[in-house]
Each structure stands twice: as C-alpha cells, then as structure tokens.
C-alpha cells in the first residue's frame, strides 16, 4: 500500500492587503541622551585627568596622598556601590516591564530605583562628614578641592538622572512611553547606567585605592 501525500494547496499571498506597519518613531530621545551621557562622561574624564595628575606628583614626591588626619572610610563607599549595582537591575526591570505594558511592575521598579538613588546621595553625604577633609577655613587642601568637586559632581549627576527617571515615569504613567515606544524609559535607563559607571570608577580609583 502506498500512501500519497497531497501537495499543499498553493495559497496566494495577498501582501498588498496586509496593512503596513506604522513607521518607526525616530529614536530622538535615546540618541540625544547618548550624546548627553557622553558629554557627562567627558566632564568626569577631565576631572579624573587632573586628579590622577596631581596625585601622581604628590606620591612621586614621597608624601602620602591624603593629608594628615584625613581618612576615607570604606563602608559608605562600598555600601553605595552595592546599592547602585542593585539599581542597575531594577532600572532594567522598569524598562522591561514598560515595554511589556506591565505598569504595576514598571512603577514598582522605578520607585525602587529612585529610592536606591536617593540612598546613594545620602550615603555620599555621610561620607563627606567622615573623611576629615575640610573645604572651608584655612586648612583647605588640593585634595579636598579635588575630592569634593568630583564626588559633588557625581551627586549632581545622580540628581539629574533621578529627575530624568522621574519625568519618564510620569510620562509613561500618561501612556506615552510604554509598549514598543518605551524609548523614554530606555533613555533614562541609559543615563542611569552611565551614572553608575562613573561612580564605579570613583569607587575603585578614588575611594578604594585612595
């Protein structure tokens, strides 16, 4: 007995009847944010260049980098690094949830990320009170100027990233940045990643290595 397999019927494709996909929205915000992030990184590269240049000269002279009495405790810096590392997960969670129109998770993740960011700011502010490097009075040192400038600017960058995240959260609440158009949250997340990357350089090369 032989079985014959019927040829599948040729189904004509009426591609002309298929509605065209809507044109993709240009990723203006994402590209603009990438440029802004590059500019932010360039600011820190400039500051790091001066920091390492001055530090190498001081060390080459045979003196300790930190002036007498000054100390940089490890705990606040380490804790805030861990906090920011966790925020990398939560911010990506927010982007993923928004892309899947899962508003509940998106808002939860954004809220937790913003909380982590605020925690980072308070931990660095605590570090400022601990390291015995005065920035006012007669005992101001080059080290104090450099460290306060770099870490202070990183706090400012974190603040800007938090405002950006908050704005995008509000706009996604209005339905503007969800589903395939979650570009706004992706852009805010990109800036957040860069903010954390900048802090990780500060954490290792300034707070750990000292």
């Amino acid at each position, binding site marked *: 007995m032989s079985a014959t397999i019927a040829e599948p019927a040729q189904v004509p494709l009426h591609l002309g009847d298929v509605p065209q996909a809507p044109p993709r929205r240009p990723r203006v915000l994402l*590209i603009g944010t990438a440029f802004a992030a590059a500019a932010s990184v360039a600011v820190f590269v400039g500051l790091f260049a001066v920091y390492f240049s001055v530090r190498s000269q001081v060390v080459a002279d045979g003196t300790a980098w930190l002036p007498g009495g000054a100390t940089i405790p490890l705990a606040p810096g380490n804790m805030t690094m861990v906090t920011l590392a966790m925020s990398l997960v939560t911010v990506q969670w927010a982007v993923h949830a928004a892309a899947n129109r899962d508003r509940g998770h998106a808002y939860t993740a954004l809220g937790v990320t913003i909380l982590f960011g605020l925690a980072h700011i308070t931990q660095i502010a605590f570090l400022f009170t601990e390291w015995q490097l005065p920035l006012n009075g007669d005992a101001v040192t080059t080290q104090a100027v450099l460290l306060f400038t770099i870490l202070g600017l990183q706090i400012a960058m974190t603040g800007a990233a938090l405002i950006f995240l908050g704005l995008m959260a509000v706009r996604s609440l209005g339905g503007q940045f969800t589903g395939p158009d979650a570009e706004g949250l992706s852009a805010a997340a990109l800036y957040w990643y860069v903010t954390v990357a900048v802090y990780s350089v500060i954490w290792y090369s300034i707070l750990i290595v000292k």
Partner: protein
Amino acid sequence: MTVTDTEAPPAVTSAAPALAPPRPATGFAALIGTGDHRTIGRLYIGTSFLFLLASGVAGLLLGAERLDTSGVDVVGVDAVAEVFGIHAVAGVFLFLLPLLIGLAIAVVPAQVGARTIAFPRAAAASYWTYLIGGGIVLASFAADGGIGGTDADTVALFLAAMIVVLASLSLAAICIATTGLALRTEGMSLRRTPLFTWSNVVAAGIWLVTLPVLAAILLLAYVDVKYGPTFLAGGDQLYLRISWAWSQPTVYMYAIPVLGIVGDIVPVAARTRLTQHRIALGCIGAFAALSFGAWAMPGFNPSLDGPLDLAYTDEVPFVAVSILILLPLLAMAGLVADTIRKGTARLVSPLVWGLAALVMLLAGAANGALVSIDPIDLINTTGQSAQTHYVLGAATLGLLGGIVYWAPVLYGRRFPEGPSTALAAGGLLGTIVLALPELIAGLLDQGALLGGPAADASSGDVDAIEALNIVSLLGGAILALVALGFVGLLLKTATARRDGEGEAESDPWEGHTLEWAGDEPPAITSEAPVYDARHAEVSS
C-alpha cells in the same frame, strides 16, 4: 401600556459659542517662547555679532599694545591679562562657536528634511542661557573678574558663567547632532547626508567631548577660587589652564563645519556634483578626529605657582597630529579643485568666501605644522597666535560665507553680490595681513603673551618686530572693517523682507540639497536630490 413620546431634541441650528482660540503671541513674547529653529538660529547669529564687538575691540587694543614692545602702555599692566582674556573668551565662546551653532540650528533641519530641530525647546533654552551667561561673563570682566582678575568673588562669577555658557553650547550641540542622526528623511543615509550636516554631526561629537572637559577645569577652578586657593593663584593662572581650548590641536574643532560649508557651496557654484562625496565625508571625519585636543592641556601642579608643564608639545602625538591634519585638508582642497575644474564655475560671493576660508585653513594647518617642529622654536611665541588667527579667521570667513549662501533660507533674501564679494576679498586680505606678520615675528622670538621680544634680541630684531606688529594691527583693522560691513549687509538683508524690499528668492543658487527643494521635496536617491530632480526634468 403607556407610550411615552419622546420628542427629538431640536436640531442644533447654531453652534454653541466656542472658546476663542488663544491669540498667538507676538513681539518679544513670541521671541521668548519660540521653538522655531530658524528663529533660534537667527537669534544666535545676531547675538554672536554683538559679542564679536567686545572681542574685536580687545584685539585691536592688544595690537596697539604691541606697537611699542618696550612696555605695556595702552591698556596698562594691570588690565592687559583681562583684555587678553576678553579677546580670547569672547572671540571663541561668545562669538565663533555660537555663530557656528546658530547657522547649524537654522540650516541642518532643512537639509535633512526635518520639520524642526530635535528638542526645539532645549535649543531655545540653550540660546537664552548662552545670552545670559555671556552677558555675565563680560560683566565679570568689567568687575575685575575673569582671566587676570584679582577679585575672588567676580573671578568665581566668571567661572560659573563660563560653565553656564559651555553647558548651553553643549546642549545646542546635542540638538544639532541628534537632528543630523535621527531626523533624516527617508532615503537619506549617512552616506547621502549633505556635507554641512555631516560636518556638524561630527563637529558636535567633538565639541561634546571637549567642551565638558573645559567645563570640568573651570568647575575645579571655581571650587578652588571659592574655597582655596590651593593650586590656582586667582585669575592669573587661569589663562594658562584653559588656553589649550583655543590652541593647537583643539583650535581646529571650530573649523570643522567650514569644510562642510565649502563642500556644499563649491558644487553648487560649479554647477556639477562634488567629486567623490564619500571621500569628502571621510576627509571631514578625519579632520574632526584629529582636532580632538583635550588631551593636550598643560599639566597641573599642586603648588601655588609651580611651572606649567608644557612637555606635551615635544611628544610624538602632538607633532603627529599637527602634521597629519594637513592630509584631510589637502585631500578636501583637491576635491574642491577637481570639482571646479570639471564644472562650469560661477564666481558667486559664497564661493569666494568659501575658497578664502579653505586657503586660510590650509595656511593655519601649515603654520601649526611649523609650530610642532621643535627646532623652529615657535612655542610660546606669536607664531602660535598666528596659527590661532589663521584657523579662527578661516572659520569666521567660512561661516560668513555660509550665512551669505543660506541667506535665502534664513532671511528670504540674498546678500548683494558685489559688496559681499568685496568683503570676502577683504576678509582674506585682513586675515593674511594679521597673521603672517605674527608668524614672522614669532620666528624672531616675539613672546605670545605680550612678553615682547626675547631678552637677547638684537635692536634690529626689535625694530623688525615692531614694524611687523604695525602691519599686523593693520590686518586687525581691515578685519574690523569687514566685520562692520558684513553686519551692515546682514541687517539690510534681514530687514528687507519686513520692509518689502527686493524679491524673495527661494533658490537663487540652484542648490543641490533639500533646503532648496521648496514645498515638494524630491525622493532621496543621492547626496544631491534637488540637483537630480532638476536634471531629470531637463532631460525629460
């Protein structure tokens, strides 16, 4: 059963009185709230010329100061550093860069077929921030602040205002670059991007990794001045810390869009396509990459008055960049020459401006190569000032040519050809007469910062240097006259539309790119779509 007869509601015969639509803002309110890229561009252009006045007057005072090299008599020893600072800071960050940005904001969206610039509100905010920041910068100079200032509070004010200016210009650069990358119309790949747009995209990229570095130095200086000082002794050392921003190789980044302007003007004037558009894109990209110079800043010394470490000028990267940058320029010049040779060139005024800019840029790059050769010993002499003047002069000439070329897009009217051509020739002459004597005086060891001739200079050298300084001042005076003449023509052109003078010309040059296409842009099939469409009509 009860039947309820429901009467139909009466037909609405007259519409309920609707709320009157909000009246559009007019006058100053409209200007403040505008998000129109052409208006923002025009505002940038107009304001930058106001700031040029401050830089130009300071430059002429410095030129007069050099006439007698035995002392500092014209502006006085106390003020000379501040005058120098005004000349440099206002010339670069309040005039030239905003002028570049203004032209780009107005033209780039039209070139890529976008309705508006990316982030129009941010572009508008950048303008108003620049205006306020620039005003505070000049005011701080007047109040003993700024470079060379002795009052710590006003020096700090100057630093803060400069950071604001740099932030605003960076914001504008983000808008321009994003427009060029994200808002190109369908079919316009990067390879088909008009050269002016391409040059602005790459220039904005370089500005965005250079200006923030300068802002970082200024921020550090601000904290230092405010709470220290620990390594900046007031405003005196400030000049030495930030002068890399207008020295080789960074100085070239202000001239990147000039290559795009020349690349767009030349084929239109020659009535043909640019030879090798892709190579031109590469030349501009290579020139931009080599102009990144934030690495070439003096070293920082933690002691208050430690010597400035200029060791980088002897190092291989500095010498290599200084010489290599000639290559993309020469290649671009070759493409331009070949295009003119193949086409049927018209000597229209934008072409004269553009060619003058290209020639000056080549002269500046050659001057820069000389500076980098150690045995010639031009570092810290007026030979370096000559290079800066060549390159920034080239950038200015190119930009003015761009304004002349795109005046129909910006103002709806064309510049008068005769006066515009004469001004272009005057600009070329003025730049050469300003810079060439400085180079020769540099070879005779004249110090760059009003240091006068070297201590061991012979009396013959001193006489020669003073004679050269007279010629250089004459060049500065010619450029001042050219600037005044150009502003006069600009005002006449800008107000002609309002006054109903002359005829509106939407495409007087028979342009090749989308800004000349009018209301019905053609499909993008090459880098010169309007040229293609026009020739298709002719051939059919």
